């Protein structure tokens, strides 16, 4: 039965966090975690500047994946004028609005961490290296900082714009309808900006850790992780919100089902991209390309590679295959947590072998040793805290759904076949 012209009555207490709600403590918890984590890591770093910055980059990029995923989710749902997603779109907007804060977390990487992270900032080494001196036009500190500034401005601006268009319509249905049109019109150029900035940021922050290596698929590889992370995070948050009595009759099993379908779809997408990247390099067998995978299947990192391969494809794929799994809060919550955990594993797998290789060369035994210590845990907790503080603040600030969106009724009544 068509539901397009129907209206729904939404109970205000279902979509607004209550005064004494535990959710209101989220920003405080976040700030405590951030201070403890980042402060602890900073205090513990001692002489281990490399370890600190590599761990910091892993933590930052893990949560950046959720933030950027949130921005992508908002843009794409506007662009295609999706109906089902409006009930969870505000949650994604709250995720996207963490981006300005996450950009601040990234600022120290550019300002203080560059020399510990990026080999190509060593001008003497670059001049002595034929390949790197040829890349100097792109890989130099000044241009790097300009590019990063541009990414941060794009991400912050886009998230703020879409957030404002959505929230300013909360009291005024007419304005909400107008804003929805504006957002849809702007979604296409926004997607362009988003795609380019995300791709080049992945090149700059992650791929240039190993400046000899290159893969044109690297940007979309990271993008696949972003998509997985945001759908997993939205799933978890809506499950927890529903368990604590919010969003009753607003976010339904039907929305779980769709979020599950997206997690499933992007699991396949990620695997397709990740395998394609590996496959081309494996087939061509050119040393300067294969060495990147060489580090990651060497010594300590081989089990991690197996975990990545299994945990990113066969486990979530077969687990999420049945319809019932995607309609049950428990099973869906388990796999969503797993996907978020695997995003961390993925970032660790991309970033840390570079440092391990550096150590292997310096120590002379050429053994790739995997370190997982307090610095990794503390930075992860710290950036999680920052993320939760920003997200929790946004969550309590406005309604949990865009209450006056012209098609909110359609979204709430949405049903799968």
């Amino acid at each position: 039965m068509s539901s397009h012209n129907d209206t729904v009555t939404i109970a205000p207490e279902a979509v607004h966090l209550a005064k004494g709600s535990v959710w209101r403590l989220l920003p405080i918890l976040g700030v405590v975690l951030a201070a403890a984590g980042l402060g602890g890591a900073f205090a513990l770093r001692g002489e281990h500047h490399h370890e600190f910055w590599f761990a910091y980059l892993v933590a930052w990029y893990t949560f950046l994946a959720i933030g950027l995923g949130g921005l992508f989710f908002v843009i794409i749902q506007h662009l295609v004028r999706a109906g089902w997603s409006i009930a969870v779109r505000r949650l994604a907007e709250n995720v996207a609005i963490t981006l300005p804060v996450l950009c601040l977390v990234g600022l120290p990487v550019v300002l203080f961490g560059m020399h510990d992270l990026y080999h190509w900032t060593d001008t003497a080494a670059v001049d002595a290296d034929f390949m790197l001196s040829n890349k100097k036009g792109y890989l130099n500190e000044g241009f790097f900082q300009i590019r990063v500034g541009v990414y941060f401005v794009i991400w912050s601006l886009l998230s703020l714009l879409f957030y404002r268009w959505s929230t300013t319509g909360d009291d005024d249905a007419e304005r909400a309808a107008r804003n929805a049109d504006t957002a849809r019109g702007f979604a296409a150029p926004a997607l362009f900006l988003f795609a380019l900035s995300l791709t080049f940021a992945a090149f700059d922050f992650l791929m240039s850790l190993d400046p000899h290596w290159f893969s044109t698929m690297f940007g979309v590889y990271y993008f696949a992780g972003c998509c997985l992370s945001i759908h997993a995070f939205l799933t978890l948050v809506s499950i927890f919100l529903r368990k604590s009595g919010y969003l009753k009759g607003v976010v339904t099993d039907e929305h779980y089902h769709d979020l599950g379908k997206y997690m499933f779809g992007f699991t396949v997408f990620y695997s397709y991209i990740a395998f394609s990247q590996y496959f081309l390099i494996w087939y061509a067998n050119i040393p300067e390309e294969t060495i990147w995978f060489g580090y990651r299947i060497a010594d300590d990192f081989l089990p991690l590679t197996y975990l990545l391969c299994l945990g990113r494809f066969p486990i979530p794929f077969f687990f999420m295959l049945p319809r019932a799994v995607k309609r049950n809060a428990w099973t869906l919550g388990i796999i969503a947590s797993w996907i978020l955990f695997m995003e961390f594993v993925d970032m660790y797998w991309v970033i840390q072998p570079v440092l391990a290789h550096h150590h292997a060369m310096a120590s002379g035994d050429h053994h790739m040793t995997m370190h997982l210590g307090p610095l990794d845990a503390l930075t992860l907790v710290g950036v999680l805290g920052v993320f939760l503080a920003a997200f929790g603040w946004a969550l309590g600030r406005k309604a949990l759904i865009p209450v006056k969106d012209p098609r909110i009724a359609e979204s709430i009544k949405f049903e799968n076949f």
Partner: protein
Amino acid sequence: MSKPSKKKVYGLLAEYDSAAGVFHACEQVRDAGYSAWDSHTPFAVHNLDKAMGLKPSVLPWIVFAMGMTGAISAITLQWWTSAVDYPIIIAGKPYFSWQAFVPVTFELGVLLSAFGAVFGMLGLNRLPMWYHSLFNSERFHRFSDDKFFIAIEARDPKYDPERTRKLLEASGAAHVEEVED
């Protein structure tokens, strides 16, 4: 010309004016315990499967079995041809280079899944079907236009010309007729 005495009854056909009408009628027919019956609507009506009490389709299992068959046979074929029957070194790589076999494995898995979905669907719907008794009814032709129908077959063990007709009329049917087989 067919003789009236040889006329065989297919079942009863009830016509409804709205999707909501047929939806609630389906619930009543379901609750009355009929098994050999179906509903016909010009467009997909959400949750009609639940109103009819239909069990989930077995189609996903067919697709899964076909997909797995495709993937396993593809990898087996490539292993056997490249590593057993005619081993040949390509680009200095091992005979059984699974990486090189993934695309074909993936494609054959997808292909057989799609076959399973399409032909499984046709098979479960018993299509193509060249004759269906319901088209003996003039009124039924509007099922693809603006009318909604429920047809209860005479072979249903619960079927009784009088009581079934009463049930359909009570469920809000605009018109109930007997259809020839």
